[in-house]
């Protein structure tokens, strides 16, 4: 019997059923069930320790659920953005082309496609710069370009703008929306309620490893049902 599973079906891009994850005695996820459909932009909201990052890492295949014999490998083309983007010690262009070259695409084509993507992200002029010498905002845009170049069906972002200045946040948000307009589905964790309102079509509110509310963005912010969600939204207003 599979008590936890990450499976694909025809209607949902990702479906999680009763997923549990624990580290020693700590229960990080306590039976999360969730379906994400193509084209959705889902924000994971919740306090620190709610399980948002763990859920993203599990969907991305970086970790496996503790229960259930199967977490099926994702067949979708996935990419993930991290709060602190892990950049290779190479120039900007090579960082983007890396993802393609590793998939067997010939280097010349990989660089051409990478340059086009850098252009979309406003990084063309920086293509020969050492990636780690870029500003925080530029680094995150570079990580986004590296994700975008692989044409991800599913894009995951774990507080990708948490340490960026407001201007860079809006730039990254604009790019995320552009990627989604081209067909990617987005699941992102954030503490920024404004960002959730701007980007998400749906809010999954989590608390202590459980999904407490799963509703359309307008509905969630207009009339949160659970006390946890009400408290969470009110904290921002205070």
């Amino acid at each position: 019997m599979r008590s936890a599973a990450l499976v694909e079906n025809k209607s949902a891009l990702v479906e999680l059923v009763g997923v549990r994850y624990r580290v020693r005695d700590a229960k990080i996820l306590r039976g999360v069930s969730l379906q994400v459909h193509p084209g959705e932009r889902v924000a994971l909201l919740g306090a620190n320790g709610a399980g948002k990052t763990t859920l993203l890492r599990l969907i991305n295949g970086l970790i496996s659920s503790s229960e259930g014999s199967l977490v099926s490998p994702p067949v979708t083309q996935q990419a993930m953005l991290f709060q602190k983007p892990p950049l290779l010690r190479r120039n900007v262009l090579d960082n983007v082309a890396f993802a393609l070259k590793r998939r067997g695409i010939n280097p010349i084509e990989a660089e051409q496609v990478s340059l086009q993507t850098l252009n979309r992200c406003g990084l063309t002029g920086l293509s020969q710069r050492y990636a780690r010498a870029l500003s925080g905002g530029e680094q995150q845009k570079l990580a986004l370009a590296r994700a975008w170049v692989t044409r991800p069906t599913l894009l995951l972002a774990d507080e990708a703008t948490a340490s960026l200045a407001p201007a860079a946040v809006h730039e990254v948000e604009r790019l995320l929306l552009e990627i989604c307009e081209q067909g990617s589905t987005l699941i992102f964790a954030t503490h920024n309620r404004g960002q959730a309102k701007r980007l998400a079509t749906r809010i999954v509110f989590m608390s202590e490893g459980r999904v407490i509310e799963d509703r359309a963005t307008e509905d969630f912010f207009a009339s949160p049902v659970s006390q946890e969600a009400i408290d969470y939204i009110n904290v921002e207003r205070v």
Partner: protein
Amino acid sequence: MIADAFLQALALVSSFDPAVISIVWLSLKVSGAAALIGALIALPLAAWVVQTRSLLREPMIVLLNASLGLPPVIVGLVVYLLLSRTGPMGALGWLFTPAGMIFAQVILVTPIIAALARQVLEDAQQEYQDLFASLALSRWQSLQTLLFETRFSLLVLLLAGFGRAIAEVGAVMMVGGNIAGHTRVMTTAIALETSKGELALALALGLILVFIVVVINIAAHYARQVLRRRYA
């Protein structure tokens, strides 16, 4: 007396004395070969330790770290016994030859490069493991990328290994025998000439040895910068 010896030493160095040049050249060959062979053994070993989930991983890490403190004279003694005519490797005929000295230095240098390379690779792996996993890289692809990403640090480790080899005296003295024109290298020559009271030659070789070590460090520093600038 010291001033005289120093002036004579400078004269020996500036005149490119053939005896001095021969000793320096042999030192560079022996230590260069030892560092290269050591790196060829150490880097795959470090990469294996970083990637493996084998039960041998932890004992290997302990062994590598412990090997950092290997006393050169003990290595010299063991290699001497191995290479001596009745030893298990006696048939090679390497005792009192440059090959034997390289063998001893490889034993000294390999753990240093391996232990430091393991740390470098492991730190890089920590940094990149999520990226590699999210890009679904195979273990081999991850390893290739790790080695490439740490190339500047690994280059410095290679030079550190060379520095250790060229400054070593105990093992090469025992295994090489310090035979003039055959196995006499800078460190063994310095030790011998000092004991004979021939301070000029000892000082000349000492100056060259210090010069080489300084050049290696400057080379390592600028190699890092030049390679880095290439990507800046």
